[in-house]
């Protein structure tokens, strides 16, 4: 009967959530927003490419004066330039619109700014003047050096591949951090979108006066468990919906979006980190869900529960404000407190796990702590639901609930 009822509650809760237009509206809002942004980026890139092509075709006519002697007249002429000696007259010509641009190269262009005067073409159009003025100098310098490779080295264009070792084994580096960081993103996104539903899941029974009919057919622990599991299922569906546009964008619009080709084989997936990340995410989700369900069972309305909810959110995200400390000094007292305090532990521990600063024993402690506390909170939530949810119009105090004798002790 218990299993039957758990399945019944699970099916009811999942079906009613997935069947609501509001759920899909909110869920699809994220990928739609991502899609719109991606579309704008694609459109922008295409426009930029067209503009660049047009600008490449349209040669800009300019005048210049060169006090440095670095400008190669042949290069300048090739790029549309005409040498002049009277800067005042050239600037006046630009002002009157008879010339498009005039560049003044100083004695030492490495130290003193090159002055560029041009007809205003808007924020992006004006950038062409700067680019052209620089291009004249670079091309002149390259011609003088006579060796493109030497020019590149002088510009600092040096690709470097680093290999580091941890305990004699090649370290994964940045590519090794990406996979476990996904759990932080998933945890944060799913919690943010489902938290309101977690909070109101038991409030609904209370506000609709369904509690007594439920409690005579269903053990409150079964009900709470069913609701929590259903939130896991709904969260999983949301994650899939979020990932879909990312996948579509990568497969079909990778080049348009300038997304670097992701060589999956280059990502280092460390099984231990992935398992720890998954356990931290699940344990944290269970703890936060149980806590919100418990708050919902005690409070008479969603409005009353709101302030508790805000406090919980702050506790959850506070480690992000100390991100630099988590990265640079993971063993500092502040980070240690965040790591072991249950409500800041999930994000802190998941970040440290991704950055490789969470030792195995630390991970074990946090995971055990999260799961034990989640189980305890679920028990408390069930008890609060039993007694709190029939206090239809008032808040139930913990003292009142836990002062009650247990049914088995007195109902003989």
């Amino acid at each position, binding site marked *: 009967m*218990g299993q039957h009822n758990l399945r019944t509650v699970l099916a*009811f809760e999942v079906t*009613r959530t997935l069947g609501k237009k509001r759920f899909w509206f909110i869920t699809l809002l994220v990928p739609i927003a991502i899609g719109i942004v991606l579309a704008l980026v694609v459109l922008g890139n295409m426009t930029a490419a067209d503009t660049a092509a047009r600008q490449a075709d349209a040669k800009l006519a300019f005048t210049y004066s060169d006090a440095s002697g670095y400008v190669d007249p042949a290069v300048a002429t090739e790029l549309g330039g005409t040498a002049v000696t009277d800067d005042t007259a050239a600037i006046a010509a630009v002002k009157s619109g008879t010339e498009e641009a005039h560049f003044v190269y100083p004695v030492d262009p490495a130290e003193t700014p090159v002055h560029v005067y041009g007809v205003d073409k808007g924020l992006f159009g004006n950038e062409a003047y700067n680019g052209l003025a620089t291009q004249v100098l670079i091309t002149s310098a390259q011609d003088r050096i006579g060796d493109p490779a030497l020019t590149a080295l002088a510009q600092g264009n040096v690709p470097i591949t680093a290999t580091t070792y941890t305990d004699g084994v090649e370290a994964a580096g940045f590519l090794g951090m990406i996979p476990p960081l996904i759990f932080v993103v998933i945890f944060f996104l799913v919690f943010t979108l489902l938290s309101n539903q977690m909070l109101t899941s038991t409030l609904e029974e209370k506000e609709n006066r369904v509690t007594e009919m439920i409690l005579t057919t*269903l053990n409150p622990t079964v009900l709470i468990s069913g609701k929590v599991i259903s939130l896991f299922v709904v969260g999983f569906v949301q994650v899939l919906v979020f990932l879909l546009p990312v996948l579509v964008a990568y497969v079909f619009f990778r080049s348009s979006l300038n997304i670097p080709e992701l060589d999956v084989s280059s990502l280092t997936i460390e099984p231990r980190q992935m398992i720890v990340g998954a356990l931290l995410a699940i344990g944290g989700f269970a703890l936060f869900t149980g806590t919100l369900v418990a708050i919902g069972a005690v409070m008479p309305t969603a409005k009353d529960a709101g302030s508790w909810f805000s406090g919980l959110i702050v506790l959850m995200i506070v480690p992000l404000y100390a991100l630099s400390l988590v990265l640079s000094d993971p063993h500092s007292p502040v980070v240690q407190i965040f790591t072991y305090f249950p409500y800041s532990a999930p994000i802190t521990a998941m970040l440290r796990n991704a950055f490789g600063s969470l030792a195995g024993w630390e991970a074990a402690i946090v995971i055990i702590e999260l799961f034990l506390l989640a189980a305890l909170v679920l028990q408390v939530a069930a008890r609060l639901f039993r007694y709190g949810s029939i206090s239809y119009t008032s808040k139930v105090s913990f003292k009142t609930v836990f002062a*009650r004798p247990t049914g088995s002790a007195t109902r003989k």
Partner: protein
Amino acid sequence: MAPHNEPLVHIQNFRMDFGSTTVVEDLSFDVRRGETFGFLGSNGSGKTTTLRALLGIYAPTAGILHVDGRPFTPEAGSRLGYLPEERGLYKKESVLTVMTYFGQLKGLSKKAASAWSSNYLERVGLGDHAKSRVDKLSGGQQQKVQLGVTIMNDPELLILDEPTKGFDPVNRRLLMDIIEEQKRAGATVLMVTHQMEEVERLCDRVILLKDGRAEAYGTISEVQNQYGGTMIRVSYSGEIPASPHYEISTRDRNYAELTLTDTVDEALILRDLVQAGVLVRSFTTSKLSLEEIFVTVYGAQNEMVGA
């Protein structure tokens, strides 16, 4: 299952404290199988608390509360039909979805629960509303759905806490029909109500709760006897003499109500009146109504509605 001659509901020395407040004290009564039992009392006398403790929603401070020989657990919910005082339904789902859900929780398969619900909705004229959201129904229509949820799965024990509270006359009639139908089918009915005429019409036995204690308990006739039993209404001319056999509870110009103080034969009272020179025009005897007993026990200040 307990032996069939055992009461279906057995409450013994039940006590319920909330902090330092004792709500129910040393309450004992039985509800026999197949009977309709009236659980009566003024507002705040502990009726709903007793029902919640009986059904395991509250943990009692002391005492034995058994349904069919053991404490009630939700696993036995398939044999219970409970219409609580505070009642409602999931509002955002369709009527059929909600009814099917409760049917499944009571142990029916989804198919059976759905089929039962559809038949019931047809019966009460809500067949066209099966797929409507509950909050789109009128208050009266929602009450019909609540009744349906209560009697799903043909419960062995029907507990109704102020069942007619907020019901319109049509639904009150429907409820009474359903109670009588369930009774005929062998269900045991335990009902809390302030409608005394319904109690007199439906209930086999009653208990009156006052300040958390049993004030009276037994058949309606036994309770009536406990509170003065018989009343004589007399239309007359002359002067009614004093007598050790009755008290004059009401006296108008030519009308009086005499409450008997012992089990004397009513014919003897009539003879004494005639012998005392009273010209008796009419002489009728009747039992005290439950309504009158209720007012006597709880005082006129008690409201007759609400919990």
